[in-house]
């Protein structure tokens, strides 16, 4: 595991893995969209509107997963002081923010026909909105603070404090009365969704996960390149 923490070896491995990851992502998206729009039946209550689930739920899963990755990377950065962990956390944030925004926006598009409202200050929606604010705040820290070591220290704290929100999002529908439906995939006793709807949802979830993996590896590569340039400029006395 230690060898992957070396930036040069990490880049070499990432460059080798990326074509395969993109190929798997494309296949998963094609299969997932086919299942979501062609084979999955309409819901007996929601009709065709249920198809929003196939883009809304994976976006929400990834928004939470990416923040958890950021928190874990921040913990690794604090414990092992490895700069690649900070790079991993920093570069995951914009991707997670887009997933979080999509979860909120597609949720709103699903809420209007089902609840009669674009937005309600419900526990699930509010905690998801807090997650979006955490993403924005985290990105703002890296943008606003010029000194990288100081920015990294504050960003690590924000990532670790903010991760408390992840179980709150997950269990908000159980802890409070909510318009949002309770968990129907990751729950005790197994999924309660019919298989023709479950498999496209899981495939779309995997497609989003592989897309994140591909984008994250490229972003880490960009950040390592940018840092290398910065170090060379400093060494040459340009900055």
């Amino acid at each position: 595991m230690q060898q992957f923490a070396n930036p040069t070896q990490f880049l070499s491995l990432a460059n080798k893995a990326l074509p395969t990851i993109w190929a798997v992502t494309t296949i998963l998206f094609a299969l997932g969209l086919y299942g979501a729009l062609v084979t999955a039946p309409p819901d007996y209550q929601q009709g065709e509107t249920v198809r929003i689930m196939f883009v809304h739920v994976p976006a929400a899963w990834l928004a939470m997963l990416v923040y958890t990755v950021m928190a874990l990377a921040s913990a690794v950065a604090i414990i092992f002081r490895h700069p690649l962990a900070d790079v991993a956390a920093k570069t995951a944030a914009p991707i997670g923010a887009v997933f979080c925004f999509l979860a909120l926006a597609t949720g709103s598009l699903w809420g209007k026909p089902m609840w009669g409202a674009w937005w309600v200050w419900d526990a699930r929606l509010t905690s998801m909105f807090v997650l979006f604010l955490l993403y924005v705040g985290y990105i703002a820290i890296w943008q606003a603070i010029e000194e990288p070591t100081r920015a990294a220290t504050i960003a690590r704290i924000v990532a670790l404090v903010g991760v408390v929100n992840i179980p709150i999002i997950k269990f908000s529908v159980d802890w409070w009365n909510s318009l949002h439906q309770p968990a129907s995939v990751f729950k005790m006793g197994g999924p309660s969704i019919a298989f023709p709807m479950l498999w496209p949802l899981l495939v779309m979830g995997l497609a989003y996960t592989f897309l994140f993996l591909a984008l994250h590896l490229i972003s880490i590569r960009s950040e390592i390149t940018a840092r290398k340039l910065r170090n060379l400029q400093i060494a040459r006395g340009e900055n």
Partner: protein
Amino acid sequence: MMDWSANHSGFVIASYAMSIIFLAGLIVYTFNRDARARKRLTQFEKTKK
């Protein structure tokens, strides 16, 4: 198969369109950023020589 003329199908189309636009935008942004970073480093290394 989705019934495109069903009630509220506009909300479904808007959700998929929004997801595709934002994810495609994210992919383009990520590739552009990577290409720019590599170009800057290459240019710097050329001027160093």
